[in-house]
């Protein structure tokens, strides 16, 4: 029985099937918001309101020819999309939607799981770099190098800003942090600075404008994914979508007081809050122009990191004050 339950959990909810449908829904939402902000229609024809467009893209990619370059490291090249998708799907398990019991720590909700989640979210960057490296195409290698360079920029502000509400809530467990802010919702306000820093840092992690230097073109997705095609590219794109869901879920849990209310209401809150964060990300994407790689790093270290430290300071002072 427990085995069946685990299997269902992995495959259906909150596992692969749920993530597949929800992440493609989030991609649809992002594309639609971006398009409407640019006075365009966005996906419209596939399914009602174009909802099935991301799924159609995925299916189309599956049917395309899969080319592996001769000089590429075959095993790594083939394994990386699956590994990347597995990593982000595992990260999704840790989001406290309603599969947890506050009193009893379980495999999906335990003390320190915020750190595990952040760690699992930085692994896709490494996966992308390895994908670029194993392609042995110099363009991909340059793209991969850029991906890592950006990692040095945004990772520290992201960590600092996400950990501040955890410090205020006095816990390293996502479910408890969410519960703390549900009890005292006013304490969300001091963390707003960290929220905005985290939104910008997540935008950089997901490689969207203004930080889309590693694959700067819309005509040819170059950079890390230059050599990928067919099924592998489909899996990589799905990995990016799931990463979007997980990052926005993380931000919603930590900054927007999680998803209280049991099964149905909690799930609804999950949808609403993650879509709100995704809307902010789409807004950022539509309003800015691409910035250069050196500017990303200087911006991250001169603006984002000090703001995150400031947020940390505010939280520590507040904590002392509240005691």
């Amino acid at each position, binding site marked *: 029985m427990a085995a069946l339950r685990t299997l269902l959990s992995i495959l259906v909810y909150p596992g692969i099937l749920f993530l597949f449908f929800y992440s493609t829904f989030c991609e649809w939402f992002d594309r639609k918001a971006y398009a409407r902000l640019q006075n365009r229609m966005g996906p419209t024809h596939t399914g009602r309101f174009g909802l099935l467009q991301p799924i159609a893209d995925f299916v189309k990619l599956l049917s395309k020819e899969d080319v592996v370059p001769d000089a590429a490291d075959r095993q790594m090249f083939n394994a990386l999309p699956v590994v990347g998708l597995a990593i982000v799907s595992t990260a999704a398990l840790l989001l406290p939607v309603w599969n947890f019991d506050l009193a009893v720590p379980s495999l999906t909700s335990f003390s320190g799981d915020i750190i595990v989640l952040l760690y699992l979210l930085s692994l896709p960057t490494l996966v992308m770099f390895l994908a670029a490296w194993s392609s042995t195409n110099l363009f991909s290698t340059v793209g991969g190098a850029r991906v890592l360079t950006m990692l040095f920029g945004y990772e520290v502000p992201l960590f600092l800003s996400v950990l501040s509400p955890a410090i205020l809530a006095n816990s390293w467990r996502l479910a408890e942090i969410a519960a703390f802010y549900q009890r005292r919702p006013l304490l969300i306000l001091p963390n707003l600075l960290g929220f905005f820093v985290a939104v910008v840092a997540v935008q950089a992690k997901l490689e969207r404008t203004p930080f889309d230097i590693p694959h*700067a073109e*819309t005509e040819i997705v170059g950079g890390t994914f230059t050599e990928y095609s067919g099924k592998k590219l489909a899996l990589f794109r799905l990995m990016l979508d799931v990463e979007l869901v997980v990052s926005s879920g993380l931000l919603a849990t930590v900054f927007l007081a999680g998803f209280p209310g049991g099964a149905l209401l909690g799930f609804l809150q999950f949808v609403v809050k993650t879509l709100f964060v995704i809307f902010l990300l789409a807004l950022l994407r539509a309003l800015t122009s691409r910035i250069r790689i*050196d500017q990303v790093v200087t911006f991250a270290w001169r603006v984002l990191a000090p703001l995150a430290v400031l947020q940390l300071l505010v939280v520590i002072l507040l904590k002392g004050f509240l005691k």
Partner: protein
Amino acid sequence: MKFQIPIGPQHPALKEPISLRMTVEGEVIRDADIRLGYNHRGLEKLAEEKSFLQDIYLTERICGICSHSHATCFVQGVEKLMELAPPKRGMYIRYLVSELERVHSHLLWLGVAGHEAGFDSFFMYTWRDREIVMDLLEMISGNRVHYAINTIGGVRRDLDEGQKAKILEGTATLRARSEYYFHIGASEPSFVARIAGVGRLTKEQAETLCAVGPTARASGITRDVRKEDPYAVYDEMDFEVGTADSCDVLGRVVVRVKELLESYKIIEQIVRKLPEGPIVVKAPRKAKPGEVVSRYEAPRGENIHYIKSNGSEKPERLKVRAPTLANYPATVEMLRNGFIADIPLIFAAIDPCICCAERAVTLVDVRSGEEAIVRLSDLRRRAAERGPNAVLKRNAPWPL
């Protein structure tokens, strides 16, 4: 630092023609060479075998975006050869379409500049506005490009009151939006930082290399064929020539937006002052022997046609010089001592007419002599990677 990019597995060398060949040292371009001819269709030879009327359709197809410029430049010249004086109303309509084409072309270019700099929202907005112009042109001529409104002796279609009202309405909307883009260009820091200081061409260089159009006007040279060699209706219109002094891509954006605003003025004057009368006068089949030089200000610069006739119904010689060709030596100069990362932006800034196709660029390392071919799209990707000159561009002032 040695600079080498290997030929990729997709072998871009076999798919795309080589058009720029640059000698590089590290990230800096030491010399550039233009290789042309992959789009050469032998139109000058073909024009000698077609009659004057058929040649209008031939010249119109020299380009898609500035189709009307070539057709009008040709027709102007032929009308001089045949000693025809087209009626006023026909001339007004012809040059109304010219100005609408200029608006369309500049909006297109603004979008392309935004896209090259990574500012996709700007690209989408300007192209949305371009739809208004294209709808107006479709209303006047029946086509969105290749308007085919010229004939020897006048134009082929007339305007009525309803169409005039729509044109004025469309122009008013576009003017409000273009002023908004002027404002965005001035105040969007990432966009300005990206294009300021790129592609420098001093005034002396522009003069000696015979640059034309907005490329020259952005270096402070106030030359516009409409003002200095006024043809047809332009001596009756009140407008100014837009210039800028910054000699870089930012100046070219400023010049084109200023030209947009001036074009709206001209369009409104043409529509308001449109005289009554016929739109065409009958043209003979044969032209008297003679020669004529016809100049026209296309959106990209000065367009010149030299037509020689020998008394028959076919031209003896038609020589066309499109404005982009005149800007190529200036482009070479702009690329020298620039950065590889800036190549796509500099090339787009002269508004190349035969563009949109992918082009490969060959980079020759000056020390090792090794060559490598790289695609323009990859160059655009690298264009996001800036060297130490980023500071220079960030602090460049807006040349208003």
